[in-house]
């Protein structure tokens, strides 16, 4: 009994080391997920970000499931997701965009170079809508259901393997 007790502090210490080691081995996770998933979109009205697309208001985002893509012309990963957005648009997905802190001429140049899959693009000059929907960076893509509720949040660029997942989420919300 006494011998067993003698080893107890060492066992506690070893347990602590194991816990610290395990935590250190975990991959870094600095993604901040939106707590707004499952809730209705907050009210907003944004001016058009480019001349050839309408602006964006929250009341427009109802009726059918769609993607709300948060992007910017100054955002490098947004270039990487452009082909995937084009594929989604080709499959008939409605994609609305919000350009964060961007000038119209920069957005137009970005779209001319990498493609324009958007139905409408609102300009969020002071990240107000971005903050209101709990998005913490660009690019991020939200699935909005026909009732105008935020159904899903994709953080980071859309990669080729994410396209099917997004299509599935859209389908789930369309029915």
């Amino acid at each position: 009994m006494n011998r067993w007790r003698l080893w107890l502090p060492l066992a506690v210490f070893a347990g602590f080391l194991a816990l610290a080691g395990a935590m250190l081995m975990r991959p870094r996770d600095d993604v901040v997920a939106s707590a707004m998933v499952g809730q209705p979109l907050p009210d907003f009205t944004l001016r058009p970000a480019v001349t050839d697309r309408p602006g964006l208001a929250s009341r427009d985002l109802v009726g059918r499931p769609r993607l709300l893509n948060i992007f910017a012309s100054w955002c490098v990963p947004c270039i990487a997701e452009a082909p995937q957005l084009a594929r989604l648009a080709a499959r008939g997905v409605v994609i609305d965009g919000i350009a964060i802190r961007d000038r119209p001429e920069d957005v137009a140049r970005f779209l001319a170079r990498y493609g324009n899959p958007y139905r409408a693009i609102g300009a969020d000059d002071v990240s107000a809508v971005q903050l209101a929907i709990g998005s913490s960076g660009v690019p991020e893509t939200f699935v909005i259901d026909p009732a105008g509720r935020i159904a899903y949040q994709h953080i980071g660029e859309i990669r080729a393997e994410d396209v099917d997942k997004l299509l599935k989420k859209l389908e789930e919300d369309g029915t």
Partner: protein
Amino acid sequence: MKALLPCMMLLILASPLAAQDGLPPAPYANRQLDDPALEAEAQELMETLRCLKCQSQSIADSDAPMAGDMRSQVRMRLAAGERPEAIRGWLTARYGDYVSYKPQIGSATWPLFAIPPALLALAGLVLWRRLGHGAGRRP
């Protein structure tokens, strides 16, 4: 060498490639509120709100454009009459507790607050017994 000089001059004149965006900061990103009492409240709140882009800094310390936009929101909401804790609540409703540096007692954090007093009480009990007041007194 002679050809190099104009090139270097050009490099100096060239505006650094914008790392972020070309838009001016939000109205109250870098401008204090006119009312010093409100500005003090804003400052206190901004020091306990986490910058989402640069997560080890508060929005008061960060130069990231998004932190500037958050500062502007904080100041404008305060100026409009909102209370600091309501603004913190608005942000935690969007980003979770993560966005706030102010410790809150919640379902996940209560052990942090409960364990130290419990350990102190335990240590006190052990000491009390060791010092010979306990029933299990040893010779």
